[in-house]
């Protein structure tokens, strides 16, 4: 087996995939569901319901607020309690719609049967029709970044898509939601991939999986060979086993690993080198949106942590407070803990367990305070470990220092905006320096400077 990976940098943190073999459970309905209006990259959605309105599962409650935006659908049936603010994954109070749950009544348009709908059986699905359905169902990237999927499928005229790459890497420690999804819904994912390829008008597809998931590689290879790699299929799909290396799940790293092409500096995106990268969760959501008319209101989420009595994978309705899921796993462990939306590398620390599960919440990770607490930073000894592990070929120690002394001009010249904030540098630093904290400050400032410069022109 030819095992590929990306060309520079990378680390291999402890996997801690505690929930690898834990079958997905359907999470209980919450009493009250909270839907933040900004669950995606781009403009916040605009509410279309009012206090007191009755909604069903799958009812549109907020429409897209701009081109780069996505509509939001209710995941529960009940009454709109209020349109207010609540703490979301940013840590701040943001506008949201709060719905009191009553029963579980679904919109009639949603096909709730288990019947597998194939693309062959639906010749009416033109590429445009697929994109429209994806857009109308509010599907966004399920890997965490939440970029609206339909935009990725309609690349700018300067770029031409050549292949669709399914991101099944899940290189982040602890998280197993994508793995469970692959094991339990492989057929749906492959149809989702077929739809994505049809929508992007390409015939080549890849599925990148890390070798720590041999069962998934085996299962998908078998299914792919049955489905695509036969005479009558116009599509050609390849399952690509990838060496275990973080941050392989980053778009640019995955493109490099799978098709050996390097994505240039921003504003270039993977499609500039011909690749459209979509998460497995997104492929599944696309299948459900297009074939089952089911908008995006449910997702697979891992709730994990070494201290948790019973870590689990859940199929959870969005808007469910994290506390409900933590309780279902045996409750918050004793002592001080760090609560993360996402994994330990890229996750966002939260200060409230009432934060709801959103479109991009692939995991709720709980780390003990002892393990999470940072150690005292020591002076940089210029060992250059951070330079070796940076997957973008940057010099983190230098960027951090330049950012600390607020030398934005040099930060820009040193390509700070290329940083993907994967945290490999900080993970590897023997002096425990807060490299990423500094670089993030510099990156956001430099991006601001670049934007204001562009606005002036």
């Amino acid at each position: 087996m030819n095992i590929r990976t990306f060309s520079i940098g990378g680390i291999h943190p402890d996997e801690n995939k505690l929930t690898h073999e834990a079958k997905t459970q359907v999470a209980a309905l919450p009493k009250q569901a909270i839907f933040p209006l900004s669950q995606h990259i781009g403009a916040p959605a605009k509410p279309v319901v009012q206090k007191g309105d009755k909604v069903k599962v799958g009812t549109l409650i907020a429409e897209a607020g701009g081109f780069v935006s996505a509509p939001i659908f209710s995941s529960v049936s009940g009454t709109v309690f209020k349109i207010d603010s609540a703490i979301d994954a940013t840590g701040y109070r943001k506008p949201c719609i709060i719905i009191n749950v009553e029963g579980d009544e679904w919109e009639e348009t949603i096909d709730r049967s288990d019947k597998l709908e194939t693309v062959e059986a639906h010749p009416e699905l033109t590429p445009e029709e697929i994109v429209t359905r994806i857009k109308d169902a509010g599907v966004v990237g399920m890997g965490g970044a939440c970029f609206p999927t339909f935009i990725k499928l309609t690349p700018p005229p300067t770029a031409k898509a050549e292949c669709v790459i399914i991101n099944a890497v899940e290189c982040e420690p602890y998280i197993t939601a994508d793995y469970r999804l692959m094991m339990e819904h492989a057929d749906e994912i492959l149809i989702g991939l077929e739809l994505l390829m049809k929508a992007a008008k390409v015939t080549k597809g890849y599925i990148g999986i890390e070798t720590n998931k041999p069962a998934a590689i085996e299962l998908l290879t078998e299914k792919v060979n049955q489905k695509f790699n036969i005479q009558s299929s116009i599509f050609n799909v390849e399952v690509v086993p990838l060496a275990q290396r973080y941050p392989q799940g980053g778009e640019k790293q995955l493109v490099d690993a799978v098709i050996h092409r390097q994505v240039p500096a921003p504003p270039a995106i993977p499609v500039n080198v011909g690749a459209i990268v979509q998460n497995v969760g997104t492929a599944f959501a696309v299948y459900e949106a297009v074939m089952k008319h089911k908008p995006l209101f449910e997702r697979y989420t891992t709730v994990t942590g070494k201290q948790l009595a019973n870590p689990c994978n859940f199929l959870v309705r969005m808007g469910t407070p994290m506390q409900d899921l933590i309780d279902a796993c045996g409750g918050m462990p004793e002592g001080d803990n760090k609560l993360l939306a996402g994994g330990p590398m890229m996750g966002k620390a939260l200060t409230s367990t009432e934060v709801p599960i959103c479109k991009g919440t692939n995991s709720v990770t709980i780390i003990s305070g002892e393990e999470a607490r940072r150690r005292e930073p020591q002076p940089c000894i210029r060992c250059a470990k951070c330079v070796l592990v940076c997957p973008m070929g940057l010099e983190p120690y230098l960027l951090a220092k330049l950012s600390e002394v607020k030398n934005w001009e040099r930060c820009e010249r040193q390509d700070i905006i290329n940083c993907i904030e994967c945290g490999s540098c900080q993970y590897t630093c023997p002096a425990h320096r807060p490299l990423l904290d500094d670089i993030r400050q510099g990156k956001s400032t430099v991006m601001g400077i670049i934007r204001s410069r562009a606005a002036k022109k």
Partner: protein
Amino acid sequence: MNFILIAVIVLGVIGLIAAIMLYAASKKFAVYEDPRIAQVGELLPGANCGGCGFPGCSGMADALVKGADAGSLDGLMCPVGGAETMGKVADLLGMAIANSEPMVAVVRCNGTCEHRAKIAEYSGLRTCAAMHACGAGETACGFGCLGCGDCAEACQFGAIKVNPETGIPEVDEEKCTSCGACVKACPRGIIELRKKGPKGRRVFVSCVNKDKGPAAMKACAVSCIGCGKCEKECAFGAITVENNLAYIDYTKCRLCRKCEKVCPKHAIIAVNFPAPKPKPEGPATSEKPEVTEAPSKPTNEGKEAQA
């Protein structure tokens, strides 16, 4: 002998030609600079702090002279030199100066450790900007002071320092030049330049929390909950409540302190008023730099006054 003569003549001629060329060049490429710019520049403090909004004192001098030519010095104010310097500049330029009130930086947060409970521990980079970017901080208030001292670092005059006991920065009114560097440095926009007021007396809402009442109340014991009592109480229309937050317009406030008394959360603070025992107060403006202890602790003084 001949050699010397030739050398002298040749050098003399070269010198003469060079002199003529230089003279011609100096006439042709002459840049006229108003002599008043240099004179004004000498009057300015030379701190180059940028508080006036120009890159430095020379930029300000240039703008002042241009303003004088245009017939108005409105909007030009050296916060460091204050009224005294501006008066001198106006005299030099033959202008009447608009009366600019002395200003001072005011920290509008009273979320000290005792008023605002910690709900989390932050172990990342200890700057306000980094903490602000990663969430609400260590308390439940997403608007209040983070206490890492970005403002103190930005101040060139050592006028603002974080009190280690309260975790909130305090402004030294004597040293504050109202240059506004701290205002720009604060990622949460807590610091505001306000009118210093007669004898340093001023009343302000020491909170910037825009959450609705219950949320604000939960986050901090002295948060503004936007109840609007102060707005009703104010006879001068100086107080407006917007987005669940009261704001006192210092141009309209007459320092009657009625709002302070009705505020149920003690979020309105009056500083430098005589305490129950009347005592001589600090100087009105920076013209009389008499050092007294009272004005250097504005927030504490305010709290005592309420108690």
